[in-house]
């Protein structure tokens, strides 16, 4: 029992130190963004575009396929469980399930799997290859050019990918609904649009920013923890994935409760 308490205490202490370090990292990134000189921002912008191409553009096809399937499967299940699912409820269902919840969540999981792992590995390798050391020697802030473009790139990518997911998910739902019922595309489209509220648009933006920031920051943070050996890389990636997934679902849960209470 005592051993369990000791382990729990150590885990709590470690978790709190990670939270403290992440808060410091966030503060330093915000400072770097605010105080960067104009030519640096131009350079940063070019790096962000590279990041968006990898994290966002290159993932569009994957997200589109997953979204279409999830949209189709969800609406099929809804029809089979709720046999009396009225035509006018299809729009509400698609907005509630796809746009509000699954879009940001599944996109976040895809971002973790594709880009979060890559970020943790890349930054860990950069530590091992002396890339960060070279920047420190030149007195160049590594956070501004290593972490910041990845975080901003991830946020922009989330906006792109969630939009793609929502469009394709709703399209998948449309396709199944049109097959199983007599409802027309035009009618379905108007049902979805009328079901969309300002809260949904706000949630879309908030989730894109929070999920993108959390995923990129955690991935970069655990990548930066790599010190000496390549054997630390897989551990850093595992930590990054597990913590990013946990935080993703926690944020989503908090937002869902918040919206429910509103």
């Amino acid at each position, binding site marked *: 029992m005592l051993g369990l308490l000791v382990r729990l205490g150590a885990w709590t202490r470690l978790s709190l130190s990670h939270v403290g370090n992440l808060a410091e990292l966030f503060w330093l990134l915000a400072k770097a963004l605010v105080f960067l000189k104009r030519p640096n921002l131009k350079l940063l912008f070019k*790096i962000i575009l590279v*990041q968006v191409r990898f994290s966002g553009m290159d993932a569009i096809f994957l997200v589109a396929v997953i979204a279409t399937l999830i949209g189709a499967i969800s609406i099929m299940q809804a029809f089979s469980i709720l046999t009396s699912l009225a035509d006018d409820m299809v729009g509400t269902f698609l907005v509630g399930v796809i746009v509000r919840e699954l879009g940001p969540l599944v996109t976040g999981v895809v971002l973790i799997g594709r880009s979060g792992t890559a970020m943790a590995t890349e930054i860990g390798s950069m530590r091992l*290859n*002396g*890339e960060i050391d*070279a920047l*420190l020697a*030149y007195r160049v802030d590594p956070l501004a050019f290593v972490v910041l473009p*990845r975080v901003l790139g991830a946020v922009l990518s989330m906006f792109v990918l969630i939009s793609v997911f929502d469009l394709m998910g709703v399209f998948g739902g449309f396709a199944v609904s049109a097959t199983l019922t007599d409802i027309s595309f035009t009618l379905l489209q108007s049902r979805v649009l009328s079901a969309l509220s300002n809260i949904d648009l706000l949630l879309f933006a908030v989730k894109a920013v929070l999920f993108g920031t959390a995923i990129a920051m955690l991935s970069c943070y655990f990548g930066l923890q790599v010190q000496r050996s390549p054997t630390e890389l897989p551990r850093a990636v595992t930590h990054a994935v597990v913590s990013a997934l946990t935080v993703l679902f926690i944020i989503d849960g908090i937002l869902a409760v918040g919206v429910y209470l509103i």
Partner: protein
Amino acid sequence: MSLLEFKKVVFPGPLFSGCPPFDLALEAGECLVLFGRAGVGKELVLKLAAGILAPEAGEVLTRDARGKGPVPAGYISHKGGLLNNMSLLQNSMLPAVFHGALSLRAAEKRAKAVFDELGIAGLAARLPSMVTASGRMLAQVARALVAEPALIVADQPLSDIDPETARTVRRLLARLKADGRTGLLVSAGNIGPFLGLGDRFLLARRGRLDIFEGKAGLSASADPEVRSFLTEE
């Protein structure tokens, strides 16, 4: 005023645990070659000099005697040393742009001219992961030439690259030294290529750092470890 000063430095970690507080000064136009077997702590000395690590006690001071100031030290690493999310050209521009020494356009112009001179203009738009170790090394040299730091710290700059690139890098280091404004601290596993370049030689071994004055001082030494390095050559 020295470009680099170690003042009663106590090294962190166990590698130089028996070493008394260490003093060293490096002047502009001087080249100090650090050599020794693998794992004796050469990289540690370089990182202290470059300001990447702090000493356990004492001070490491870097000054830009030219008064240009913004980039006191540059680092060239045989391991890579370039950011993978930027092209080689952008990497070479970064320190000068970051410190406001050059505008983005001026840095790009200068970097392109340096790339032309080094014969790597065709690699400018590539990411570091897309070129060979020789290309990466030349891009690091280009970065140092664009940023013009007062002190250049180079970690085994001639290892893992082809002989022709090694000759180019050595020639450029010699040119930097000859301009009389830049100080060089270079580590080497094989001192042969640096015998003509080094003004002083610093031998690192477990718990000790010994200085030798010039090639003559090195040749006159009866130290078996120095002899073994010279014999290897």
